[in-house]
């Protein structure tokens, strides 16, 4: 045994001891990961050693894309994945060290990675596949501005020649960051929200746009995609067309599925195997799940930033159906809810909005100025306004991350969330 290997083995032994003590103490999942990281800072790279690793990162859709990719991979063999939505280093270490199912040592790993932590994680897994969906404004207090995230991605990618990528060619920031990776599969899944990519990420000039296509006077332009999504049908690199037939609703999930499909293909899973497995996924971390809250059936939706909301209006039950919107501004939501002003809530005119969550007053002001009828309620599930309580139609409830999780917990939904 070489010295290097011996040192690694000793480290892993120590690490295992820490692990078992942590588990005996019964600390929380993410806390367990933190303890491991404190004892063994390179735990992540060690846990991934010998495995093919794929990271999914994006502002929107990374949890869903991860779940779809894991489902596609599982159709071909065992997979190690994080299905908790805990996408920062401690959560990922915990997912790897405490898998919910036993998997072989060489089983591939599919992980959702927070945009800001992706660079650090890649240093432990320099031969990973990165699946890059989109970048838009979100949690500006923590994540920072979009151009900054793209710059950090790009400089990290440039230092890791072993990386491969599946990347959304329609998003200029993603395309610019991924352009330094030698092996990229470009995918066209659309980009409804363009307000964060007005300027060329390369030179700062205003981008020219023509439908999905974009280009800059400096020569930087949209890469040619080899997978293209149009109206629920994907054309693969061989030119074959496949209907997606997803159970998950909405255009954004078609985009997530095509990202996952191209990634599965890059990892050796054929389209014919991947598609049916992805089509069977019906809920991701409780999104789109119908639960019972306050004695009525409620469908839960996650709406956490303007780009996500741009896809939301088409998914809501049509007017005059009322809708509950729950706004929090904790760390995981972003502490500044001014993004509510970037959402065209005017589109909700003609229905009643029940404004709730810790920052319901911010939403109420936004809706007041949008001319939308609203009623502000601290806990609608115990005191539902009469106009909503009277209807027996299923109700949609949209929440920011922590508000959504709270409704999910109260409603007893989602077994795939820790």
């Amino acid at each position, binding site marked *: 045994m070489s010295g290097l290997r011996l040192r690694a083995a000793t480290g892993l032994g120590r690490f295992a001891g820490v692990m078992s003590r942590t588990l005996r103490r019964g600390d929380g999942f993410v806390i367990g990961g933190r303890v491991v990281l404190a004892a063994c800072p390179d735990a992540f790279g060690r846990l991934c050693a010998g495995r093919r690793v794929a990271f999914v990162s994006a502002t929107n859709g990374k949890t869903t894309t991860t779940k779809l990719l894991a489902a596609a991979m599982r159709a071909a063999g065992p997979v190690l994945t994080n299905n908790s939505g805990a996408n920062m280093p401690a959560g990922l270490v915990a997912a790897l060290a405490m898998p919910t199912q036993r998997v072989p040592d060489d089983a591939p790993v599919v992980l959702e990675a927070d945009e800001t932590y992706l660079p650090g994680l890649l240093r432990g897994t320099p031969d990973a596949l990165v699946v890059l969906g989109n970048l838009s404004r979100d949690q*500006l207090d923590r994540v920072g501005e979009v151009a900054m995230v793209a710059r950090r991605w790009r400089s990290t990618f440039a230092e890791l020649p072993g990386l491969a990528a599946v990347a959304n060619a329609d998003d200029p920031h993603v395309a610019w960051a991924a352009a330094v990776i030698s092996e990229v599969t470009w995918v066209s899944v659309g980009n409804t929200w363009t307000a964060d990519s007005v300027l060329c990420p390369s030179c700062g000039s205003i981008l020219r746009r023509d439908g999905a296509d974009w280009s800059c006077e400096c020569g930087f332009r949209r890469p040619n995609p080899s997978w293209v999504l149009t109206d629920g049908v994907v054309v693969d690199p061989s030119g074959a067309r496949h209907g997606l037939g997803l159970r998950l609703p909405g255009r954004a999930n078609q985009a997530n599925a095509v990202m996952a499909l191209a990634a599965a293909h890059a990892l050796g899973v054929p389209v014919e195997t991947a598609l049916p497995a992805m089509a069977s996924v019906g809920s991701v971390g409780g999104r789109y799940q119908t639960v019972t809250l306050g004695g009525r059936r409620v469908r839960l939706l996650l709406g956490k930033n303007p780009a996500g909301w741009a896809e939301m209006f088409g998914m809501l039950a049509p007017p005059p159906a009322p809708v509950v919107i729950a706004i929090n501004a904790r760390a995981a939501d972003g502490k500044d809810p001014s993004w509510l002003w970037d959402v065209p809530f005017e589109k909700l005119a003609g229905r009643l909005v029940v404004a709730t969550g810790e920052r319901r007053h911010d939403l109420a002001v936004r809706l007041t100025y949008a001319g939308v009828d609203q009623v502000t309620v601290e806990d609608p599930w115990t005191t539902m306004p009469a106009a909503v309580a009277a209807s027996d139609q299923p109700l949609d409830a949209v929440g920011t991350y922590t508000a959504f999780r709270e409704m999910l917990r109260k409603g007893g939904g989602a077994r795939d969330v820790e």
Partner: protein
Amino acid sequence: MSSESAIRLVSIYPMLLGTYGDGGNLRVLTARARLRGFEVEPIELDAGEPVPADADLYLLGGGEDDAQVAAARALRRDGGLARAVAHDAVVFGVCAGYQLLGKEFPGSDGVLEPGVELLDVTTTRLPKRAVGELLAEPVSSSGVELTQPLTGYENHAGGTTLGAGAHPLARVRAGVGNGIDRLEGAVQGRIVGTYLHGPGLARNPELADLLLSWVVGSALPSLELPAVEALRAERLATVRPEE
């Protein structure tokens, strides 16, 4: 659409200067003027589109570094905003939009970039980014008659120093604001600059109405919106003054 009597509100390059929800300021002013019976023509300018010099009020919001530089260069080239200010137009700039109204601000990679020089302020890089709730008490000496505390959210790395021509808008009670002398914002004639996002005019209706009163030339009838009062009460109760 346009009419001689309509109040013309111009949002300058919201695609560049709209990253922090400041587009809400245009919606707030439009609604508050219409609720008083005024006719309003809100205008959103695409990046690089000529700035009309004959509008009544101009809004600039926060944006990313490259976007801020692009906006400042386009405005300097265009000259419309400076002509409007010469005709006594009202200008309200937030964060990047506040900084670029001044003489100089740190652009991409911190390189100093000339502003449009309508406001006697200079901005340099703060050692640490200012992120969080901002609470400030209006300063009466600025020629601005505000009585209510100003509340908002700040997210910037700019330290803004006021020259002799500019007066502070407010004194910081919690947060960073200008980052110099515990002051927040600047006022010069009918130009107001501030670090208050939230958006600032949604959280501070008194300031919104002050800008509108400058446009119409008289005080406005009062307008009580319970949702706005509830938001202010909640924010003011949450944010503790630091002194």
